[in-house]
C-alpha cells in the first residue's frame, strides 16, 4: 500500500518543501544584503533568480500527486463554489437543462421501450407474423395490412412447412364466463397449437395448451392470464384442474401464463384452444392471425418462397364445397408477406416516435444554445478576472478546462433533475395511456435510458461549454481594456457570437412551430371530415354476445336481441336504441364477401368484395347516419325475412350512377340465392378510420336468410347503440346493465364506451403527435424568445452610454426603440429564412403523419414566420423601452 503511505506522508513532504524554499530565499537575501543591497533590492533580486515561486512549489508538489485527477478535483471544487456564488445563474441553467434533458430522457425511454428493445419473448428476432398479400383480390386491397390466414391454410402450413420451428394462428374474442360470481364478459385469445411454442414463454403454473388440446372431440381445456388468475382466484395455485363455464360449456384450467405475457400485442383473460375439425374445413375464412418461429438461419424471403409452395398444396387439398374451383384463388395472386413480429407490434408508431425524438432533440439544442448564451454574458462580466488570471500565467487550456468542468457539473445536476422530470412524465403517460401506443406496460426508465441521460448531459455540456470556452480563452486582450470595457459600446465582433446563437434558435423554433401547426391543421382536417355519424359523444355503446349454447334457435335469439333494445328504450333519458354487428371505427374485423349487381357482367365471374354490416331497424336514425335515398328497415323486414338490402352511397354511385337510381335495383351474394332488392341508400361512413376512405358497405337486416345455405341466420355478437344526453355517465351504464339483466340474467355487457371515445381514440396517433409537437414547439418558442430578449437586453445595457450621447444630441426616443427592435427583427429574419428550409425538410419527413394538408402548406409557411416575427418584436420591445427611458445625464455620468 505504498500509495497510501505516500498520501498520508504528503502533508509532511509539503511542509519540508516550503521550509526548504523559504530558507533558500531567506539565506539568499541575507547574502545579498551582506553584499550591500537594501532589503527591498535583495528581496527582488532573490525572487528574480529563484523564478516563479508559486509555480515551482506547485510543480514540486505535483511530483507527489496524480496531477490530472487532483487538478480535476480542484476544478470541481471551484465549480461548486462558483455555482454557490451565483445561485440565480446556476438555477436558470440547471432548470433549462433539466427541462430539456428531462423531455429528451422521457421520449427516449418511450422510444427505447417501444421500438428499440426486443419483444419480451426468448429469441424474439426469429418471430414473424404471417400475412398474405393478395393484389388480385379486388376489394380486399383496402385491407392495408394484407390478408390473414384461413384455418385450412394453418393446417396445411403446420404440416408441410420447411422454414418454421413452429407455426400457429390466433384470434381475439370475447366470451361469457358464468358460474363464478356474476356473469362476466372477458377477453379471450383463441390459439392453435404452435402459438405458445412460437412465443416460448413458460407458464407460471401448470402446463401449456398444445396441439393435443385442439382435438374437436377432446376434453375442453383453457389457460388463465396472470391478471385474471389473481383477480378471480386470488392467485391460488391449486386452480389447475378446476373447471369453469365458458359460453355455457365446461372447460378445465390446465395452467396460468406469467405476469405481463401477451399474445403478440393482445392482452387476454383466457387462452382457449381453437379446435378446427380438419374434416369440415374449406379454403375460405381468412380471419386468423398467423405467427411463426423461423428456423435458425432461414430468411423471411426463404419463408415467403416456402409459403408460395404451400399455397399450391393448400389449393390441391381443400375446396369451398362441391362445384367450386379450388384454384379460383389463383386469380388473387396470393404471395407470402411475412413481417417481423416486432414490426407488427410496433406498427406505424415508430415513425411518430422518431419524429418526436427528433423535435425534442432540437429543443435540447435550443436549450443548449440558451445556456451558451448565458455563459457568454457571464464571460463578458468576468472579462476582468480572466484577463488577470491570464496575466498571472494561467494557460488557455487551464481556463477552458475549468469552465468545462463547471459546465459538466451544471449539466449533470440538470441531468439528475431531468431524470426526475422524465420519471414523472412517464408516469403521466402511463396514466393517460395513449390507446395506440403499443407495449405501454413495458415503458419505463432502464439502464439504457439512464445511460442516455448521462451521455446527453455530458455531450450538451461539451457543446455549450465549448461555445463559451471559445470566448473565455480569448479574453479581450489587456487588463486595461478589460477594466475599461464597461463604458464602451460593444463592437460588432463581440456580439457576433451571441447573434449567431439567436439566429440558430429562431431557425429551429420556426421549424418546430411549422411542424406543430401542420399537425394542428391535420387535426382540423380530420375533425372536419364527415365521419358518417353525428354527435358521437351522446352515443353510449356496449357489446353483447348470445352464444348458441345459451339459445340455439336463431329467431328466438333475434327476439331476445329485440327485447333488450325495447327494454333499454325505457331507461329514462334514452332517445333511441339500435344495434349492429360493428360500429364505425371500432376496429372489429368486418364481415365481407362478393356482391353481384343484377345485369352486370364480371371478368372471370369475379365480382368485387364488399364490407357487410348487419343492423336493426332504427340503426341509421340512432347513429345519425343520413339515409340519402329510400327507407330504413322495419321490424316486418326482419321478422318477415324479406329479401332486402341497404347500401352505402358510394356503392350506389359506383353501381347505378346515383343514390336515387339504386333504390329498387337488385343484388345478391351467392349465385344460388334469389335477388335482393335495394330499399335504401345510407350516407358513406368512415368505417376504418377518419383518415381512411369510406368503404363500400352493404347493410343487411340482423336476421336474414343465409346466402350460403337454406337457413335463417341471426347475428349473435352485437354492438348496442343508445342515444342519450346521459351518455358516458355511470348511472346510465348501471341502468342499462340492469335493463339487460331484466331480459336475461346470463348476459354480461362488455366494451362499454361512448362512440365519442371511439372517435377520439381513432385520432389518438394524431393527437399524441400533436400534443408532443405542440409542447416541443412551445418550448422552442419560449427559449427562442428568451434568447432574443437576452441579446437585446444586454445590448441595451452595453450601449447605455451611447444611447445617452444619442439622446443628448437630439435622437428621438421612438427612433431609439426602433433601432433595437430592428436589430432583433434582422436576427429573426435571418433565422426565419434558414428555419423555413429546415421546416420544409422536416415536414417532408413527417408527411405520412399529415392528413388533408400539404407538407409545404402555404398558409402555415407564411403564417408561422409572421407570428414568430411579431413575438420577436415584442420580446425585443421590452428591453428597447428601457433604452428610451435612459436619462442622458445619468448615462454620461456613469463612469
Amino acid at each position, binding site marked *: 500500500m505504498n500509495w497510501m503511505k505516500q498520501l498520508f506522508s504528503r502533508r509532511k513532504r509539503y511542509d519540508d518543501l516550503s521550509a526548504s524554499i523559504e530558507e533558500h530565499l531567506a539565506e539568499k537575501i541575507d547574502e545579498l544584503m551582506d553584499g550591500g543591497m537594501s532589503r527591498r533590492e535583495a528581496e527582488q533580486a532573490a525572487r528574480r533568480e529563484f523564478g516563479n515561486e508559486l509555480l515551482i512549489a506547485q510543480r*514540486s508538489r505535483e511530483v507527489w500527486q496524480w496531477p490530472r485527477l487532483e487538478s480535476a478535483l480542484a476544478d470541481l471544487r471551484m465549480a461548486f463554489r462558483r455555482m454557490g456564488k451565483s445561485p440565480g445563474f446556476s438555477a436558470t441553467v440547471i432548470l433549462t437543462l433539466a427541462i430539456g434533458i428531462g423531455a429528451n430522457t422521457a421520449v427516449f425511454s418511450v422510444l427505447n421501450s417501444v421500438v428499440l428493445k426486443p419483444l419480451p419473448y426468448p429469441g424474439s428476432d426469429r418471430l414473424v407474423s404471417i400475412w398474405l398479400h393478395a393484389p388480385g383480390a379486388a376489394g380486399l386491397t383496402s385491407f392495408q395490412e394484407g390478408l390473414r390466414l384461413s384455418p385450412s391454410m394453418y393446417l396445411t402450413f403446420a404440416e408441410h412447412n420447411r422454414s418454421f420451428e413452429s407455426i400457429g394462428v390466433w384470434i381475439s374474442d370475447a366470451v361469457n364466463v358464468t358460474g363464478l360470481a356474476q356473469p362476466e364478459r372477458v377477453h379471450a385469445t383463441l390459439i392453435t397449437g404452435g402459438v405458445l411454442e412460437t412465443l416460448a414463454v413458460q407458464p407460471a403454473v401448470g402446463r401449456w395448451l398444445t396441439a393435443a388440446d385442439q382435438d374437436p372431440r377432446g376434453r375442453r381445456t383453457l389457460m388463465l392470464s396472470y391478471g385474471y388468475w389473481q383477480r378471480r382466484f386470488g392467485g391460488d395455485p391449486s386452480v389447475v384442474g378446476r373447471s369453469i363455464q365458458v359460453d355455457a360449456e365446461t372447460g378445465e384450467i390446465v395452467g396460468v401464463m406469467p405476469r405481463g405475457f401477451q399474445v403478440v400485442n393482445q392482452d387476454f383473460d383466457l387462452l382457449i384452444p381453437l379446435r378446427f375439425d380438419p374434416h369440415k374445413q374449406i379454403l375460405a375464412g381468412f380471419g386468423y392471425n398467423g405467427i411463426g418461429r423461423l428456423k435458425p438461419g432461414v430468411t423471411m424471403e426463404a419463408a415467403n418462397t416456402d409459403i408460395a409452395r404451400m399455397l399450391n398444396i393448400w389449393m390441391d387439398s381443400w375446396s369451398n364445397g362441391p362445384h367450386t374451383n379450388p384454384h379460383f384463388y389463383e386469380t388473387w395472386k396470393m404471395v407470402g408477406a411475412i413481417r417481423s413480429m416486432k414490426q407488427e407490434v410496433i406498427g406505424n408508431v415508430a415513425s411518430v416516435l422518431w419524429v418526436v425524438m427528433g423535435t425534442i432533440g432540437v429543443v435540447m439544442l435550443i436549450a443548449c444554445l440558451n445556456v451558451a448564451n448565458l455563459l457568454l454574458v457571464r464571460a463578458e462580466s468576468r472579462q476582468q478576472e480572466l484577463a488577470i488570471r491570464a496575466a498571472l500565467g494561467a494557460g488557455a487550456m487551464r481556463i477552458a478546462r475549468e469552465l468545462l468542468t463547471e459546465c459538466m457539473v451544471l449539466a449533470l445536476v440538470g441531468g439528475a433533475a431531468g431524470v426526475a422530470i422524465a420519471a414523472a412524465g412517464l408516469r403521466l403517460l402511463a396514466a393517460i395511456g395513449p390507446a395506440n401506443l403499443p407495449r405501454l406496460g413495458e415503458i419505463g426508465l432502464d439502464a439504457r435510458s439512464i445511460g442516455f441521460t448521462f451521455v446527453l448531459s455530458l455531450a450538451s455540456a461539451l457543446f455549450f461549454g465549448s461555445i463559451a470556452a471559445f470566448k473565455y480563452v480569448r479574453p479581450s486582450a489587456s487588463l486595461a481594456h478589460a477594466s475599461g470595457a464597461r463604458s464602451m459600446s460593444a463592437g460588432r465582433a463581440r456580439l457576433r457570437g451571441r447573434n449567431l446563437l439567436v439566429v440558430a434558435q429562431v431557425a429551429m423554433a420556426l421549424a418546430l412551430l411549422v411542424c406543430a401547426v401542420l399537425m394542428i391543421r391535420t387535426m382540423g382536417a380530420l375533425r372536419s371530415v364527415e365521419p358518417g355519424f353525428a354527435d358521437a359523444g351522446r352515443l353510449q355503446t356496449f357489446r353483447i354476445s348470445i352464444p348458441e349454447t345459451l339459445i340455439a334457435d336463431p329467431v328466438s335469439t333475434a327476439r331476445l336481441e329485440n327485447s333488450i333494445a325495447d327494454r333499454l328504450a325505457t331507461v329514462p333519458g334514452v332517445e333511441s336504441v339500435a344495434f349492429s354487428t360493428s360500429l364505425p371505427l371500432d376496429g372489429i374485423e368486418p364481415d365481407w364477401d362478393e356482391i353481384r349487381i343484377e345485369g352486370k357482367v364480371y371478368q372471370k365471374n369475379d365480382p368485387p368484395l364488399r364490407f357487410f354490416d348487419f343492423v336493426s331497424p332504427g340503426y341509421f336514425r340512432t347513429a345519425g347516419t343520413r339515409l340519402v335515398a329510400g327507407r330504413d328497415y322495419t321490424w316486418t323486414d326482419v321478422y318477415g325475412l324479406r329479401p332486402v338490402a341497404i347500401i352505402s352511397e358510394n356503392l350506389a354511385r359506383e353501381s347505378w350512377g346515383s343514390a336515387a337510381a339504386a333504390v329498387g335495383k337488385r343484388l345478391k351474394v351467392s349465385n344460388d340465392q334469389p335477388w335482393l332488392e335495394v330499399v335504401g341508400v345510407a350516407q358513406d361512413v368512415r368505417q376504418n378510420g377518419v383518415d381512411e376512405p369510406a368503404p363500400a358497405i352493404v347493410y343487411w337486416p340482423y336476421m336474414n336468410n343465409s346466402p350460403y345455405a337454406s337457413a335463417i341466420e341471426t347475428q349473435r355478437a352485437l354492438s348496442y347503440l343508445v342515444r342519450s344526453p346521459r351518455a358516458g355517465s355511470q348511472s346510465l351504464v348501471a341502468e342499462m346493465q340492469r335493463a339487460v339483466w331484466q331480459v336475461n340474467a346470463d348476459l354480461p355487457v362488455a366494451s362499454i364506451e361512448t362512440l365519442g371515445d371511439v372517435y377520439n381514440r381513432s385520432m389518438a396517433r394524431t393527437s399524441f403527435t400533436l400534443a408532443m409537437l405542440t409542447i416541443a414547439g412551445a418550448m422552442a418558442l419560449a427559449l427562442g424568445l428568451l434568447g432574443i430578449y437576452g441579446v437585446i437586453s444586454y445590448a441595451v445595457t452595453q450601449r447605455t452610454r451611447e444611447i445617452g450621447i444619442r439622446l443628448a444630441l437630439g435622437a428621438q426616443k421612438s427612433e431609439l426603440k426602433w433601432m433595437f427592435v430592428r436589430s432583433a427583427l434582422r436576427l429573426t429574419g435571418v433565422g426565419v429564412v434558414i428555419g423555413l428550409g429546415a421546416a420544409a425538410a422536416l415536414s417532408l419527413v413527417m408527411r405520412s403523419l399529415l392528413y388533408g394538408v400539404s407538407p409545404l402548406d402555404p398558409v402555415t409557411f407564411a403564417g408561422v414566420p409572421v407570428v414568430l416575427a411579431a413575438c420577436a418584436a415584442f420580446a425585443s420591445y421590452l428591453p428597447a423601452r428601457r433604452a428610451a427611458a435612459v436619462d442622458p445625464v445619468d448615462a454620461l455620468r456613469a463612469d
Partner: protein
Amino acid sequence: MSRNTEYRDLFPGALEMMILQSLRLRPMHGYALVKHIKAGSDDLLRVEEGSLYPALQRMLREGWLESEMGVSAKGRPTRIYRLTPAGIERLERELSSFQQMFAGISRVLAFNLA
C-alpha cells in the same frame, strides 16, 4: 510555459547528475546545493535556482535521496538532503553512460574538424 523549465540550457538528466554528484561529497540543504553547483561550474551553467526543487522532490520519490531536519548556515531550520545507496548506484550508472556519450560526441567533433 514549458513543463521542463528545469532543464533549460541543459540536456535531460544533467541537473539530476550534478545534484547527485554534489550530494555525494556531503549532505547539503537546497541553497547550499545551488551555490555548490554554481561555484563548481564557475558560473558557466545557468541554472534557474527554483528549478532545483521539483528535481529534488522527484529524486526523493525515486528513493535516490532522503531528507532530514537540519540547520542552515545561518542557524535556521531547514531540510538537509543526503544520498542513499540507490542514489549512489544511479549516479554511477548515469556517469558511465554520460562519459560514453561525451566521448562519442568528442570523437565525432574531432573527426569533422580534422
